[in-house]
């Protein structure tokens, strides 16, 4: 077994890197793959919260790098999915506690035991980003359909090319089909036309994402949700399957239909 190292990054903060990492990890592990997530956001860790594992942290990434514990001791096993592990970030240190070569060594130690190593990159283009990208085999860039997020994604994609980690693959997160239809949001085509990289997933805006993150239950645990389905599709594409992109049309209930008939053009 030799794992594929996937780094999830974005440049801009708040576009859904951590949510994407957690959900892809869940979706892959639910499909029987052996997965470990590494939180690269030292000092501002979140991945443990989204995965609902925060109260089980004893050792963290910096403890491993600095030799205070063995790698196995820092790996937290998820209780819902047998083959999902998390290596949390330290909360009391900063990005400089770890170097890019530390990350390469760490992932090399993990490769033999896993199918997938997912690294959640911090926002920005500084040390934390370089730490996270250094060991990557594939880089996933998450962006939202808004101008500032796309601009930052473009910058990040350029940096990834410069690091010879490209070509990056794109996840377009929080697409609101209603706004796209009204012409109030960049369309996936607009974004792709600028970024010119392979699109590996479109995740619709879905209230379930925030609700489930707050409970520490990633939305992908419930594949019936629209966002959960989208993450499962991305996981299958990562495994090399050819999965068609889902229809983003929101199913309307009778009241929404009526409201649209009365006020055509929007809500």
């Amino acid at each position, binding site marked *: 077994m030799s794992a594929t190292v996937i780094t999830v990054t974005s440049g801009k903060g708040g576009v859904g890197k951590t949510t994407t990492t957690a959900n892809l990890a869940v979706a892959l592990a639910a499909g029987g793959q052996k997965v470990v997530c590494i939180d690269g956001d030292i000092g501002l860790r979140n991945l443990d919260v989204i995965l609902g594992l925060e109260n089980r942290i004893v050792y963290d990434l910096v403890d491993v790098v600095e030799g205070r514990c063995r790698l196995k001791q820092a790996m937290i096993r998820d209780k819902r999915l047998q083959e999902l592990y998390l290596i949390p970030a330290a909360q009391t240190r900063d990005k400089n506690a770890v170097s890019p070569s530390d990350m390469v060594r760490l992932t090399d130690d993990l490769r033999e035991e896993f199918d997938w190593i997912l690294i959640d990159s911090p926002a920005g283009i500084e040390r934390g980003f370089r730490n996270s990208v250094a060991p990557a085999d594939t880089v996933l860039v998450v962006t939202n359909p808004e101008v500032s997020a796309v*601009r930052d994604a*473009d*910058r990040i994609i*350029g*940096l990834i090319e410069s690091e010879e980690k490209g070509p990056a693959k794109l996840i377009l997160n929080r697409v609101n089909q209603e706004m796209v239809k009204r012409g109030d949001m960049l369309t996936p085509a607009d974004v792709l036309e600028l970024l010119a990289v392979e699109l590996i997933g479109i995740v619709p805006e879905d209230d379930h994402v925030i609700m489930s993150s707050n409970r520490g239950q990633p939305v992908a645990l419930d594949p019936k949700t629209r966002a959960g389905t989208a993450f499962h599709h991305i996981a299958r594409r990562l495994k090399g399957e050819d999965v068609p992109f889902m229809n983003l049309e929101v199913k309307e209930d009778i009241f929404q239909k009526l409201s649209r008939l009365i006020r055509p053009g929007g809500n």
Partner: protein
Amino acid sequence: MEEYPAPGLDMMFETQIVHIKGIKDGLLVTIGEGDWPGAQDALLSSIVEKASFFQGARVAMEVGNRVLHAAELGALRDKLADQGVSLWAVISSSPGTEQTAQGLGLATRLSLPRPERTVRPLDTTLEGENGVFIRRTLRSGFKIASHGHVSVLGDINPGAEVISDGSIMVWGRVRGSVIAGAGGDENAVVCALAMDPTQLRIANLVANLPGKKAILQPVCASIRNGIITVEPWKLKER
């Protein structure tokens, strides 16, 4: 200065301060050290002496670093003309004298020997000008700054910058900032397959971009009548 003895004229006239010899364009009179009236008299007397030799001659006069005024030069020219001698050039190391001579319509330099006429093959190889070529899309945060021209095979995305002292040619879409003629060259141009720049500048001017409308066809931006004008590139009109 090189001297070219005219064929069949190797005689020389020497007086104390006036030295005369034949050159390709006629006669060259070199006037040595000494006061001007004396030198002028010596020259005139040697001309009168050999009147038949000097008749119709064209004379160039070398006066060293003497400062001569228009009145002096003019008077000499007229006196020489009386003898049938035309003064056509005054060579001097004094800028004042040169200027005076030029004011009188006299040459201040002997014409250089004509280069030998060699028949060169018609040469249509142009040397061109220096520039850089970038074969990639410039993403946000990338910057090219060059003293030469810049050509990009790829797009210039928002947040990317190209700055050139010369012209900029983009085989792709411009959406970032482009500055051509950054050193002040108003002849610089910006060409692109599609133009939707964040900012477009040529020399000291900033383009007034109409609204946010992208131009999705090949265009060339240049300075016309003091403003940056973006015109479609039409193949047939060129």
